[in-house]
């Protein structure tokens, strides 16, 4: 069992590497506290699930589903999020490194700028906590769509999360306060287009593979 426990993945960059777009303090809390809590609660729910399965306790199994969805979703979403960000000014942030995806975006929205505008509007329209995503419908190289998921719901099924943006207040509040538009505007300076291109072309492996 011990080897099957989920663990917090290390960030692919330093806590202060996304400044000035996302502050070091936010990144530390977000990764070490928030993400870690999802991991801990997922492990607890999975352990409880094993016990309930062994005792054939179906009511408990059903009661556990929402915990697994929320905390498993939180773990998946944050694991994807850290990787689809990159420090500003690094090669990954250059959309030229994502030729296939860029072409797909332009053919879907008419221009990169139109896409950025549409994505921002979708994010700012979210009511409550949740995530904004660029997804590739049905698998790699599919039709692109902007979607939002509430709370920690992950992108489901065959759809590929090309990149996601965390719209929980804890993702930006210490720095941007109620100006979430400022956060959404800044996020483009740290989107990892190289990672997005990879996901668009080849899909996403199970982000929580043990």
């Amino acid at each position, binding site marked *: 069992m011990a080897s099957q426990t989920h663990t917090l993945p290390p960030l692919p960059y330093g806590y202060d590497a996304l400044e000035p777009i996302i502050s070091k303090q936010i990144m530390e*809390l977000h990764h070490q*506290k928030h993400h870690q809590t999802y991991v801990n609660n997922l492990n607890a729910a999975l352990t409880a699930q094993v016990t309930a399965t062994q005792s054939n306790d179906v009511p408990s199994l059903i009661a556990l589903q929402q915990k697994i969805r929320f905390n498993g979703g939180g773990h998946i979403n944050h694991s994807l999020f850290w990787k689809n960000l990159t420090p500003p000014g690094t090669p990954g942030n250059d959309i030229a490194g994502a030729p296939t995806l860029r072409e797909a975006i332009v053919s879907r929205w008419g221009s990169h700028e139109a896409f950025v505008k549409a994505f921002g509007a979708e994010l700012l329209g979210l*009511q*409550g906590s*949740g995530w904004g995503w660029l997804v590739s419908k049905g698998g790699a190289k599919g039709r692109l769509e902007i979607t939002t998921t509430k709370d*920690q719901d992950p992108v489901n099924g065959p759809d590929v999360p090309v990149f996601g943006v965390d719209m929980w207040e*804890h993702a930006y*509040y*210490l720095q941007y306060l*109620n100006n979430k538009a400022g956060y959404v505007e800044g996020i483009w300076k740290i989107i990892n287009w190289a990672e997005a291109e990879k996901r668009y072309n080849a899909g996403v492996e199970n982000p929580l593979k043990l």
Partner: protein
Amino acid sequence: MAATLFSSTARVALRSGASATSKAGAAGLTFARGKATLPDLSYDYGALEPSISGKIMELHHKNHHNTYVTNYNNAVVQLEEAQHQGNIAAQIALKPAINFNGGGHLNHSLFWENLAPKNAGGGEPPSGALSKAIDTTYGGLGEFQSKMNAALAGIQGSGWAWLVKDKQTGQISIRTYANQDPVVGQFEPLLGIDAWEHAYYLQYQNRKAEYFSAIWDIINWKAVEKRFS
């Protein structure tokens, strides 16, 4: 709620002027010439410290609550336009905006009222019929508070926990609501606690349990009693 919406016919209302402001009933909502307006707090921004910092209160009231008011008024203008045109689809499409922003306005208006500085009765335990109902239902104020705190901690995402009264049975219970869903219908709101991150994050960050425990020092039980009776 619906009655309020549909009676505010002053579609091209003049800019909200303080002179026309009137306090309206239990919900504590203020209107100026048919427009919802941001209610004044009955205490200073810093008066709830150390439970809630002055900076949080200021942002929460002047920015967050005010945005709900603005967006609610905008949605109502659009709704009246759609009604005027007999456009049913447009009216239905506006429902989420009305629910979210109207709910945000209702919830925060109630919230400010059910808080009070310590030197104005904040944290003083309830008495009378409400106290009895809490004892009967939960076995005591402390037990009620821990159940309410557990409900708050269990909210997945943004939302509120409420002590409510069932209009059918008169019983009280704890209910949680997602995002800005207001307490309407079968239940009446008695006491609400905001569990959105913006309500505590600047002061407590991820340690939300500390916020839920500190807020009892500034609960205005007198206001809750009034709603209960």
